[in-house]
């Protein structure tokens, strides 16, 4: 917590620049993003639930001491937590900030990552929509850079129109900058 303690006396002190302004300007992505997450999590969960039923049935037939419903209960509970709770948290952890010459993308609950891509370094831009995203009218904006790390920075959960506008906006700024 205390950053100043981390420096050796012989080394330079931490900068006085306050970072607090960094987190306030973030724009939230579309709430439909939560729905999209819920749908895809539900689809992923189906095999697990089926597996739980099968396992439970097999165990019951083999005459195991575990009372019926324990495994199913645990799995269903976990799935429900993933469907109801997690998308909310992921949605609130995600945000972006469109600056005059850069895009900032923040994501992650446990492992947070805060990436800034300057428009001057964007190689090309994608706006993608999967079937779920299309039904919910949201899209994923991807900025590609030439760097090895962060070769493509994704920003999902934008309203489709906004994503397209952002793409045009960024594209124009690249053009203007290079002239």
């Amino acid at each position, binding site marked *: 917590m205390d950053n100043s303690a*981390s420096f050796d006396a012989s080394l330079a002190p931490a900068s006085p620049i306050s970072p607090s302004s960094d987190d306030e300007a973030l724009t939230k992505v579309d709430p439909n993003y939560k729905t999209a997450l819920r749908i895809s999590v539900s689809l992923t969960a189906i095999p697990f639930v089926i597996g739980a039923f099968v396992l439970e049935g097999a165990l019951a037939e083999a005459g195991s001491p575990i009372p019926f419903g324990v495994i199913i209960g645990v799995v269903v509970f976990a799935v429900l937590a993933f469907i109801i709770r997690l998308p909310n948290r992921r949605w609130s952890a995600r945000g972006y900030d469109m600056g005059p010459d850069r895009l900032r993308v923040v994501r992650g609950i446990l492992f947070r*990552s805060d990436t800034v891509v300057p428009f001057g370094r964007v190689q090309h831009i994608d706006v993608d929509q999967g079937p779920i995203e299309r039904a919910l009218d949201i899209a994923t904006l991807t900025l590609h850079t*030439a*760097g090895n790390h*962060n070769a493509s920075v994704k920003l999902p959960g934008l309203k489709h129109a906004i994503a397209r506008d952002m793409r045009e906006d960024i594209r124009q700024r690249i053009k203007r900058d290079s002239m």
Partner: protein
Amino acid sequence: MTAGETSPSVSVPRTARSAQLPPIGAGETVNRTSLLSVVVSTLSSLQNAVVPAVLIAFGNFATPSDVAMWWVFGQSSILIGLFVGLLIAGGGAGFSYLSWRRLTYTIGEQDIRVESGVLSRSARSVPYERIQDVSLEQKFLPRLLGLVAVKFETGAGGADDLSLTYLTEAEGERLRELVRDRREGVESGVDKGVEEADAAGTAPGHVRGAEGEALFTMGPRRLFTFGLFEFSLAVFAVLAGLLQYLDSLFDFEIWDVSFWRELADEQGGWWLEMGAYAQALGVALGIVFVFVVGSATGMVRTFNREWGFRLERTARGFRRRRGLLTLTDVVMPVHRVQGVTIGTRFVRYRFGWHSLRFVSLAQDAGSTSHVVAPFAKLEEIGPIVEEAEFHLPSENARWYRATVAYRNVSIALDLALFALAAVVAAGATAIFAPKWTLLATAIPLALGVLDAGVGFLSWRYKRHALEDSQIAAMAGILAPTTKIATRVKLHSVEIAQGPFARHFGYATLHLGMAGGEMAIPGVPLDRAREVRAQVLDTIAATDFSELEGQSSPTTA
């Protein structure tokens, strides 16, 4: 192929080119590689034929004592071996000739095109402006025949890069100059490009002109010193590999314990009869032997790879030539250098020796960065770094260390991992082999403590410095490595935090670098944000296209 296109009224000329690429423009010629390259590939297929032939010829006399049997069957097996060898070599030669016939390259206005393939054809086009560097490589055999392999590095990496094997030396050199001229032309506007290409056409070799200024060379004395530090036991690995190869061909069981036991009984009887001193002497001699062989291997490898090492600053960039049997000649433009890495190794560091690499999109013999000074003192490295428009961190650069919290957390995590390993080992041995439990538990724990100690010490050397035009990061305790990147050539900046990092308020700074990775761990969050803000301001001031365009100050 496509029958629809060949209507009776239009006669389509049968040339080597396929329909995949635009037609060849006026003044463009379709070229073939040198016919001598057929000789090279035939000879190398002959090389492949020798081993099986010899093995078939001599491989099947199971009992060498039975001379009579060998006279009967041995001779016929020699004939069979010869036949098989000839078959392989002949097939190789035929195929080499066919593929030579079917490979053509075209030097176009905008790109270079290569079409190849005997059965399945492939056509590849590479625009000049995307060529990162052109390297010439002469292996021993082609060198005898005056041939050279030309490689065009595009940053696509490895097999995706375009290479022409083999051209005559003169043609290779001409092609390289031509590509370089065209590339400069593309980058500085078409008119100029045409002019330059004309100039190149009328005055061949004008670019090469005077030899560039030598930045770094290594003479035999330096190579000898270098070789001393390149201790290598590769030769034993090769021997082991060879033994295993023989094992698969002969009835020679190297993995059979009884074979070695018998050998030891036969040969080792005298060993047991010797006194303790003699045995100790034997062990010492063995160690000396391994050391001598290892050093000799290192020496030979170093001399072979680095012989005649010469790094030059030419009008268009850096040029590096080296090699004893295999000659290589690489040219890289200055503006393609994305960053520099100064590395070293444990022992040589004590004597002040370092190596310098350039990070770029192109690859160098499979490695991701170009070695420009494999073995040099820091005062020799400084000027090369300056030439690449970087500079070594200045005396009064403000170095920032990783946080104490970062050190403690990484040590704790490592220890936890080792403790887990110890618990698993203890559990497993307690069940299966109780008498080893103590040892199996003690080893991971000891390793963990050792690791923690190293982590504790190395933290002192983990630091970074932000300067006006560049950012430098340093890490490593026994062999410190310094990475320097130009701020303006970075592509993105990320601040990443795991759960512990968030709790203790530090972060890892990932810098998006073309052709390389650069991450600075354990930076206090405030500092990480400040660095990011400053770097981004530098980046945002210059567009990528300007970065590529302003690239060659040498064009004028």
